[in-house]
């Protein structure tokens, strides 16, 4: 199944991924080839087959919702690209 340049641009937008013109060209070609290859799965009859999301049975694990003090705020904030008054600074989001 061939995918178009427009498909690639749409998916890049969904993924919040900036791509150059060359990358859009390249991925249009490469993703088409990979999806063609993956298309072979369509031949398999899976009508009565349940999907497997985890190989080992898993269940949701919940814990008590409890307030605790964060011990290493400084170490965490040291990784922030921009920080002010113990908060992450980001570009303006509301006019």
């Amino acid at each position, binding site marked *: 199944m061939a*995918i178009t340049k427009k*498909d*690639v641009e749409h*998916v*890049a937008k*969904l*993924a*919040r*991924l*900036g*791509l*150059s013109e060359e*990358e859009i060209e390249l*991925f249009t070609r*490469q*993703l088409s*080839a*990979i*999806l063609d*290859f*993956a298309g*072979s*799965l*369509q031949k*398999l009859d*899976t009508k009565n*087959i*349940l*999907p*497997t*999301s*985890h*190989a*080992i049975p*898993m269940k*949701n*694990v919940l*814990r008590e919702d409890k307030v605790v003090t964060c011990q*290493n705020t400084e*170490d*965490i904030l*040291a*990784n*922030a*690209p*921009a920080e002010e008054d113990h908060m*992450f600074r*980001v*570009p*303006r*989001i509301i006019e």
Partner: protein
Amino acid sequence: MNKKTAHELNNLLVNKKISSVELTKAVLDRIDKTEGKVQAYVTVTREDALKQAKAADSRISELPDTRIPLLTGIPIAIKDNMCTKGVLTTCSSKILANYIPPYNATVVEKIKAAGAVIVGKANMDEFAMGSSTENSGLHPTYNPWDLERVPGGSSGGSAAAVAANECILATGSDTGGSIRQPASFCGVVGFKPTYGRVSRYGLIAFASSLDQIGPLTKDVTDTAILMNVLVGYDPKDSTSVNQPVPDYQKALIDNVKNLKIGYIKELLGQGIDQEVKASIEQAMKKLEELGAKLIEVSMPSFEHAVATYYLIAPAEASSNLARYDGVKFGHRSKEAKDLLTMYYNTRREGFGAEVKRRIMLGTYALSAGYYDAYYLKALKVRTLIKQDFDRAFMKYDVLLSPTAPSIAFKFGEKTADPLAMYISDIATIPINLAGLPAISLPCGFSKKAPIGLQIIGRAFDEETVLRAAFTYEQNTDWHKQIPEL
């Protein structure tokens, strides 16, 4: 002494024939001499390692011999996707080039508690996406057996560091073969435990239903020793299983009499290099001589394993990697006039080509209109693959195949065609999709490059895998070969 295994060195350390400081210095000297050629490390933690070595030496002098943990004072390398508190952890990506974790991964805590000396962080394919370490966003790693060949991937730095004696043992992570395939290419032992055996708290996520941490070592005994340190339930990882943990060293039994081994027909036919096939057949003959029963088994669903994996893994990755948005940690683009351009430009500048390709592929497979045809279909085929294994394990104790269809390939050989690179994972991918334990161990050479034998076990039956691997190893000497560098 850096050529020795952990269990040999433990003996020398406990009997005070050597000190951990001497051993650690020998490893650091080796790193100084060979890193120019191999480039296995992203970061070498020289000073911290020597401090840890000193602490290990005092622990050895204080504790009674029998109470000294086996890894005390042994230099180890950690794959750079496992968080080390206060030590750069890049995942070999530009987007995390300056990331200093505020906490340790659970496996790092366990390794430290066991007294091992962390000498550095090992290079890898960016975000563990790749089969050659050529996708590292920082620099390539070279195969110690032949510098023109790749070390495999994604744990290529870990495997190369062990093979080049730039550490005694190492950790890796395996999503579609990322421990076993580099172990095969570098002539060392690599083990992926059952999904859920090892806590992934602090492991930078790639594909959460597939990722698992495991050892890379010089022999099977060291693998069992490091397994004993790594495994166990962790409340911080809700996918880690609360199951009794055996002593894996007790599984090191030199006996495969009447063990039923199924060799996988589909992994010894088309697409497998003749030299690899010949080595595997020799290994099968050896195991037969040692008393095992070898029977051919067919796994028809394997034909579809690569396609299945390359939908599921990118889908999970596209979701996991959404967190790299330039807000709280990692790279942020300077071209960020509003929130959207900050996201677009941060991710454009920070991710390499393969990571972008997989985010695109995964986002597409999950997007409206394509979810059923691609992602859901792949999950159903995953069930078929699991059923093939279930059927096989009703008859056989372990399964056998080559770890990779070829020896280590040369740089650039597969980079132009992503599909060619993906297909090289054919022998390892089905095991991750089914969540099973599997080991790769050296079983021969072709053109002076190592060949790996893969042994696969039932879920949570790491012991039978170790027993078969140990028996083969004790009766051959492939694992004693050392590359000339």
